[in-house]
Structures are given as C-alpha cells and as structure tokens.
C-alpha cells in the first residue's frame, strides 16, 4: 500500500519475539498514516465565548458561595460581609401545607370546590361546622377531624347520612394546617386553628375510640380556638348550647 511513509526505524525492534516475519493483515495494509496535528489556532469566537463563560461562572460563584463558610447552607442567608449567617429558614405557610393535605386526603369526598356532593358528602364552603354556627364551636370541627363522625348530620339545612373517617393519624400541625386552609378557602373567613389548640383537643378526647354522632357533639359546649389559646387551661364555654 503506497499510502504509508516508509519506515526509518530499526525493523528488528518491531518483529515478533520469535523473529519470524509476520503476515500483514489486509486491514493494516490499507491503513492511513498515523495521526498528526495540524496547527490551526483556536477560533477567535470560541475564545471570546469561553471568557464570557468563565466570567459568568465566576459571578455565579461569588453570589452563591455563602462566603465559603462551612456553617452556611443557603446562599441567600449570607452577604459578602459575612453578616446574617445561620438565620432560621422562613416559616412554612400553613395554608400551603393545608392545601396539600386536603388534596391528598379530603378532596375525594369534599371536592376541590369544597362543595361536596349533593345528598352524599356535605359541603365545606359556608358550612357552619367549618366556620362556626349557632351551637358549633372550633372544638367540634377539631373533634370531628380527630375521631370521625357517623349518622345523620345537618349541614346548611340539608341532611346527610354518611361516615367521616377519623384522621387522628395526622400530626397536630397537619390537622391545624388543613383546618386553617378550609376555614380560609372558598369564601370562608374564619380564624386560623393553632397546633396547640389541636393538641389540647386531642389530649382532652384521648380516650375516645368511636366516631362522634351529631347528638354527642351537640351535648359538648362550643369553644373558640382563640379564647382557648389565650387561657392556659381550657376556658369554660362562653356560650351555652342552644336548646
């Protein structure tokens, strides 16, 4: 094959150990010469692009390195002066958490609109059970969530007869978050429920194993979460049950 430059090397170095002449495969015979380098420069545009990239990366590193401190975990919490390191993360909005819990657990019956299903599942939007009514207080809705409810129930003038499962497996802050969410969504405008209030209700009804009926709940004095939270011990009911 003529495409190869003749060797100027000592061929004895390159024959096999036995010294025999090796057959040369056809694929080796047709090979091009060994690769070499041309000498074209790096394209100018590419060089410029590389400097721009290094500049961007440098700026990014300067702004997001958290001062190269080992105790800074979020670059937003530190400035180049090093002040403000280690601040607490922003508190989570209970309504956002509540929306997530609602989507995961409640939406099947009560629907994303909060209107429920006529005749089957009661609505939450405008419901006296959620925002408070003539005999319904904040302790009732927390109790219903913790232990469930069954039997006939009147909501906004209609009667429903179905079962609400207990949700005591949720944590206090999760129950507080989902209640805060349903009390502020779909036109509802009731005060948020605090984690402490859910805990106090859970402690109070800890022995309960059965779901509530409307009759049992009616016998319970209504309380307001705000009033209960203000006093260290659960305050006496401010409004007596009607009837």
């Amino acid at each position, binding site marked *: 094959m003529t495409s190869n430059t003749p060797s100027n090397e000592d061929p004895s170095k390159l024959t096999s150990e036995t010294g025999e002449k090796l057959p040369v495969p056809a694929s080796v015979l047709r090979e091009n010469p060994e690769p070499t380098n041309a000498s074209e420069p790096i394209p100018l545009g590419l060089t410029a692009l590389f400097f721009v990239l290094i500049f961007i990366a440098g700026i990014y590193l300067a702004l997001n390195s*958290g001062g190269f401190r080992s105790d800074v975990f979020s670059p937003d919490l530190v400035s180049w002066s090093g002040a403000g390191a280690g601040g607490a993360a922003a508190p989570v909005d209970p309504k956002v958490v509540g929306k997530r819990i609602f989507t995961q657990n409640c939406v099947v019956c009560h629907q994303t609109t909060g209107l429920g299903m006529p005749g089957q599942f009661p609505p939450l939007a405008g419901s006296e059970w959620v925002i408070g009514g003539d005999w319904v207080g904040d302790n009732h809705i927390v109790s219903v969530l913790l232990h469930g409810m069954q039997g006939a129930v009147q909501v906004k003038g209609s009667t429903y007869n179905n079962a609400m499962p207990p949700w005591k497996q949720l944590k206090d802050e999760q129950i507080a978050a989902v209640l805060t969410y349903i009390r502020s969504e779909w036109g509802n405008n009731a005060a948020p429920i605090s984690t402490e209030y859910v805990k106090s209700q859970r402690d109070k009804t800890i022995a309960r194993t059965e779901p509530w009926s409307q009759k049992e709940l009616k016998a319970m004095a209504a309380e307001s979460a705000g009033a209960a939270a203000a006093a260290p011990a659960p305050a006496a009911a401010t409004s007596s049950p009607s009837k």
Partner: protein
Amino acid sequence: MNQPSHSSHHEDTEVRTLSNEARAAIDASTRGPVILFLGSSIFWLVIGTFLKLLADWQLTIPTLLDCTALFTYGRIEPAQNNILLYGWASTAAFGAGLWVTARLSRVPLLHKKLLTSAGIIWNLGVLLGTVGILIGDGNSIPGLDFPGYASPILLIAYVLIASWIIITLRQRQPGALFASQWFIFAGFLSFPWLYATANILLVWHPVQASAQGPIASWFLENITNLWLAPVAIGTGFYVVPKLVSRPISSPSLSVLGFWTLILFGSWTGIGSLMGGPVPAWMMGAGVAASIMAIIPVLSIAINLHLTLRGKYSAMSWSPALRFTVFGLYGFFFSGVLATLFALPSFNAVIQFSDVVAGASLLSLYGFVSMTFFGAIYYIVPRLIDAEWPCVKLIRWHFWFALSGLVLSVSALFLGGLLQGFAQFDVASTFRSSIEFVSPFRFLAAISSVLLLLANLSFAFSFVLMLLKTGKSESGPALLNEPTENSLETLAV
C-alpha cells in the same frame, strides 16, 4: 501519495512514521489481551442490557418475576448499572486504551501473559460483584454497588492493567506525545484514585453521614468525566484522523479541552446536591464548574468537527466512523445538557426525576458506548486478520442502537419533565407524579428491547468475527457503496 494538500505543511514528519510490518508486529503483541478485554466487555454488555431490559419492564409491570428476591427491581437495577459500568464500558476502555497506546507509542506489549491474567482477575471481580448484588450484599450507592469484598479484586486487577499503559508509554519511541496518549493516560490514572477513595470513605470505613452525599455524587460524576470520557475521547482522537486521513485540526484546542476537562469535569458532581445538607459553597462551586464544563465539551467537539469537515460522507460506508461520529454527537449533547440541567432553576425541577436517568443513558450509551463500538469495529479486523463477516448485522446494530437510544432518551426526558413539575407543585401528590411518568416508562421499556437487539447483533457479529468467517480477500465490510473518491474506502 496524495495527502490532502493543507495538511502536509504542518506535519511533524520525523516522528509519525510507522511501517505496515511494524504495525502488524505491535498488533500481534496486543492481540491476546485486547481480544480478551473486548470479548469479555461484549459478553458483559449483553448480560447488562438483558438485566436493564428486565429492570425497565419491572417499572411498568411491578409483579414481573417477583417470585424470588434475586430478581427484584432493587437488585436487578444496580446489577445492570454496575455491569454496564465495570463489565462493559471499563473493560472496553482497557482494550481500546491499550491498543491505541501501543500503536501511538510504537512499541509492542511486553510480558502479556501477566496482563492477560490481570484481565481474567478483573472479569472474576465483576462476576463476584454482580453475584454479590444479586444475593443482596449490594451497597445501595449508585455506581458503587459492588460489595466490599469484590472491589479490592477489581482494584488489584486494575493496578496491574494500568501499569501496562504506563510501562508502554515509558518505553515509547522518541517523539512528541499525541493527544490520545494524554487523554488515555489521564483516564487510567484517575480510576484508582476515584474508586479507592470512594470505596474507602463510603464502603469500607464509612465517614459521617453528612459527608457521604458529596463523596457519592463526586464519584458518580467523575467515573464518567475522568475515567470513561478521557479514554473514549482519546480513542476518538486516534480513530477519526486515521479514518479520514486528516491531521487533528488544532493542537491548542486539544490542550485546552484536556486541561479544562480534568479541571472542571472533576467539580461538576457536587452541584447535583442542591437543597441537600451540604454547605452552600459546594453547590455554588459545582454549578460554576458545570457552567465552565461546556468549555472542554465545545473544544473537543469542535476540534474533531474541524478535523472531519468535508469528510463526513465517509460515515455512510465506514462502520467505525459512523459509530465514532455518533459517539461524538452523544458527547456534545450530553455535555451541553449536563450544563443546562445543573443550572439551579432546572435542577430544582428535574433533580429527582427520570431526566437524570435519561441523561446518564445518553452519556453512557450515546457517548461512551458508541465511541467504543466504533473503536472495536476499527481494531478487531487488524488484530485477527479477518473482515467483519456480515454487513447486515452491523446495520442492525447501528439502527437498533440509534432508534433505541433516541426513543429511550426522549421518553425519559419528556416523562421526567412532567414528573419533575408534578413533584415541584406543592398541591400535587407523589402518586400523581408517578402517574404522569408511567406511559413514558413504558416507552423506555420498549426501547430497551431495541437496545438489546442492537447489542445482540453486535455480539453475534463479534463471535462470527472470532470464528474468522469473513475472508480478508473479500474486502472490508462497507455499509454502503463509497462515492466518487475511491481512496477513502481504504481507510475503513
């Protein structure tokens, strides 16, 4: 001989000569070990792709083969991943790296019996590690699943194999080093550093938990960036100029690509820990390195593109060039996408989605495997004095591989994006994110059938080759009739 006129001006003619007899002598010395490495790598490729097929279908049909713990997803998935990483890609890297280094150093391999034994030990290590994963001893660290009793065997075998690269390089004929030699040498030096460090700190004597995340992601990224990528690129830098008979366009770009790959490539891994329990500067440094990692990608891809410019038509008939060029495309796309996905706004969405699986498939199969396929199509006829016997099998290999890869990567990217956005949305549940991605996982499972067909065609072709069914008098295996310039067909 009619060299392309522009290249003859600049060649360092005094050092780049090698007679056909000298080539044949070097090839005769590398024959045993290189055929052992390439053959066993193809064996592992078929086993790995078969297990990958099984794992991908288990994502669609969870009850598939759930009769015994041996075949559960939690074992099949790490087994296929580690087989493809160590059994296939690393073993093929040994074969290709040794052959290219011996050719460019212009010396035959010495004491190859010891090297062959090291190759057998390596394969036994991979076998032991795979069995270890399947019987439940795996480590659950991606890329490091081989149990602690298998990895020392791999390291010992590795040190022996890598010594041959160093010995061959030291005994080279005088003359300047070629780019392929630096890349391959750097790759072979990196592996023991990466593998020993990660095994000591994560498997044998685990460090405190908060430090394990950064080490694991550093290792996983660098096993590609510093070990497989340099060897594949080094092989490409040899095969491409040999096939198109052109010098490498710009040596300055080669140097720039090499050093920026070593420098920035090794830092990119920790950027993926975004939001994790690591100091902010680690993510900052990782993202900055990922932005700069586009420099080696562009340098290497553009350098090889300028070398190939005007000669791309040879892809239509040369199997080696076709696979190598697609490997180069794979390198370019996976590099650009790796930078894009590392940006915090993207990373926040795709961090825990199938996009990550798609990106690693693109890099391992689209870049590393395609490049090694090309190299194997080039190397093997020279080693065993036969031609590839069946053009149809090569065609099947290429088209099944390409269609499987494109289908799989696009399904994982699209499904992964939907999954990522669903995970990112605070009001949507984890279950709904899985429901979004499941049809795309079905597509990915179908495409792994295509990948298995491709690799089976390749393995069958290789076995026929070893049986020397392709007579050398019949001429080289060409995928198509070459066009006008008949000189170029010679380079196949």
